[in-house]
């Protein structure tokens, strides 16, 4: 569920746009930071380096003078260290160290290369604290001279990097956050549209998209979809009205014919005895009328305008009543199993629900061969009816919901007729649905009798 939502979320165009935008923002930010770095920290660094090199150079020049002896040279070192506290100078004169360092560090590159190395400095409280020194060494006639300066900029550089890191992180969070918000907004609008389309697909042509006052691009699309739905709804209605009218108009004369036949049968029956052909005519006429009635009722059920007075319906009782009704049909022929795994209650119309369940159960019994098995399992608002009859091939499963569809055109029996179409319409009225599956062998009908919680 969550991974699915995440996948959906990250697949959107706006999310891709957000990511691209984030990259651009991060690049620009980094560029600015690099420039700032160059102008501030790096510049100070260069100055520091220049200072060190100047000092080192100065001492080298000093040592190169003929007139300068060891004493003057060490004096100069002393003077410089006293003047500047951040200056580190050490002369390695015949393994004796002159200057303000106690020991001579190894591996210091020669002028003009510089290296950063740590030393311990005793502060005013008498505590030692590590300090980074940037230094180089030059050869003098008195020995190797090390010149260095406290590298405070090293700390600054660190701070700069931390601050930059925070700034970039903040920018990242900001853009992604904005992206998430936009994405959710857009997704919710798109979701509204796709949910509506799904509803329309499931037959609820009356559904319309809500329009906001902003009149934005989504409202434009919504409006167009709504208009399209109005048109489709109108067309469907006019078609179903035409069929309704045909059925209705044909029914009246057919009813009259039926009345006449009945009249003749009532009179002639007494005078002339049985008229078997007339009884047959009446029976067939009844079937035609029945089909008309079912068609009219179906189109009525499918038009969700039907105002049902719904009340809580106990599904266990309804199923039990269905089982009681079909019990004698089952008795010797096959085995009927009826299991309540979990009782269920739905808001609905008892008569219609009974009818839907009866249609499905009766179908299962009708198509199950002798000694077969029909199993009815109620699990909350979901009812599963399984049989081990011939089943319905997969490619036919959608078709059986069509009006008057027959599975095997050559078969002479009644087929599914309007039964399953009526079941589907009834379940749709209750916010449920019907699903057909393979029972290996046979058919498994899954009736969701109400909305899924």
């Amino acid at each position, binding site marked *: 569920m969550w991974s699915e939502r995440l996948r959906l979320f990250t697949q959107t165009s706006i999310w891709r746009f957000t990511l691209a935008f984030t990259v651009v923002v991060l690049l620009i930010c980094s560029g600015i930071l690099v420039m700032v770095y160059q102008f501030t920290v790096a510049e100070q660094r260069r100055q520091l380096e220049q200072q060190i090199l100047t000092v080192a150079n100065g001492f080298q020049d000093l040592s190169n003078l003929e007139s300068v002896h060891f004493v003057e040279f060490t004096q100069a070192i002393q003077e410089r260290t006293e003047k500047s506290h951040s200056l580190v100078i050490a002369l390695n004169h015949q393994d004796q160290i002159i200057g303000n360092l106690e020991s001579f560090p190894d591996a210091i590159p020669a002028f003009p290369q510089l290296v950063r190395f740590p030393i311990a400095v005793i502060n005013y409280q008498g505590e030692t604290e590590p300090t980074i020194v940037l230094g180089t060494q030059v050869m003098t006639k008195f020995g190797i001279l090390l010149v260095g300066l406290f590298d405070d900029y090293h700390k600054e550089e660190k701070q700069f990097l931390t601050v930059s890191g925070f700034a970039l992180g903040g920018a990242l969070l900001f853009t992604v956050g904005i992206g998430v918000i936009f994405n959710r907004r857009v997704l919710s609008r798109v979701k509204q549209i796709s949910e509506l389309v799904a509803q329309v697909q499931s037959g609820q042509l009356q559904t319309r998209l809500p329009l906001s006052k902003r009149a934005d691009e989504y409202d434009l699309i919504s409006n167009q979809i709504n208009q399209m739905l109005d048109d489709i709804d109108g067309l469907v209605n006019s078609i179903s009205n035409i069929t309704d009218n045909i059925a*209705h108009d044909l*029914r*009246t004369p*057919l*009813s*009259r014919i*039926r*009345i*006449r036949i*009945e*009249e003749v049968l*009532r009179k002639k029956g007494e005078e002339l005895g049985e008229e078997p052909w007339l*009884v047959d005519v009446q029976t067939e006429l*009844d079937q035609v*009328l*029945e089909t008309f*009635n079912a068609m*009219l*009722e179906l189109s*009525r*059920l499918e038009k969700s305008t*039907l*105002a*049902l*007075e719904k009340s809580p319906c106990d599904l266990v009782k309804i199923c039990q*009543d269905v089982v*009681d*009704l*079909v*019990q*004698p*049909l089952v*008795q010797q022929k096959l085995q009927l199993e009826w299991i309540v795994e979990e009782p269920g209650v739905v808001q609905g*119309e*008892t*008569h*219609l629900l*009974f*009818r839907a369940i*009866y249609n499905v159960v*009766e179908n299962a019994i009708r198509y199950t061969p002798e000694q077969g098995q029909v199993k009815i399992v109620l699990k909350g608002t979901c009812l599963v009816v399984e049989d081990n009859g011939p089943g319905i091939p997969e490619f036919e499963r959608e078709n059986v919901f069509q009006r008057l569809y027959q599975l095997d055109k050559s078969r002479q029996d009644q087929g599914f007729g309007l039964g399953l179409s009526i079941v589907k319409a009834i379940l749709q009225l209750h916010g449920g649905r019907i699903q057909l599956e393979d029972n290996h062998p046979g058919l498994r009908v899954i009736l969701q009798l109400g909305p899924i919680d």
Partner: protein
Amino acid sequence: MKLLLIEDDELTYQYIQKAFQEQGYTVDVANDGNEGLFLATSGEYDIIVLDRMLSKMDGLTCLSALRATGNQTPVIILSALAHVDERIKGLKAGGDDYVTKPFSFQELLIRVELLTKRHQNTNGNTTKLVVDDLIMDLLGHKVTRAGQEISLQPKEFQLLQYLLTHQGQVVSRTVLFEAVWEYYFDPKTNVIDVHIANLRKKLETNNQSQLIHTVRGAGYVVRAP
């Protein structure tokens, strides 16, 4: 027995009128809602058959108006509208039964007779139903025939109870189904016949006389031989 028929289709009312007259009913016909309401309020009818869709005044409006006057004459609604919600509307407006067009006269007759009889003896709080040597004890929930106890399934018990309560009257399959299962729709198959056949097997063993009789094209009736 006086019957008022409120129906605007000429062929239909002529036929129903004739058929009821053959059954010994006195039949008055009203061709629209206004006239129907006027005649019905006179209160001299035992039963009213009312078409749902009428000119001038709709059947249901007519019925509600009639009930508003305090008139309690049983009313059967005849309707081309077969839907459950229509039926419920009809019964809510004060109808006692609802017959969907196209109907067979037999079915209408059965329902008219059931209603008129029901109207006459509704307050018979009997605890025992008897036909021939069959006794149904409603308190003890027991059925015996010639002293032999017969065990029945709950629905079989209800079926038999309904038939015994209306002994001598023809009861159709749909009437039985509606009374025992209390769902409004026609199961169409022979399922009620199978229930009755099972019930018969239990009641009429060992060459005992037949109690449940089939009336061809109409339904069933319980009668002592």
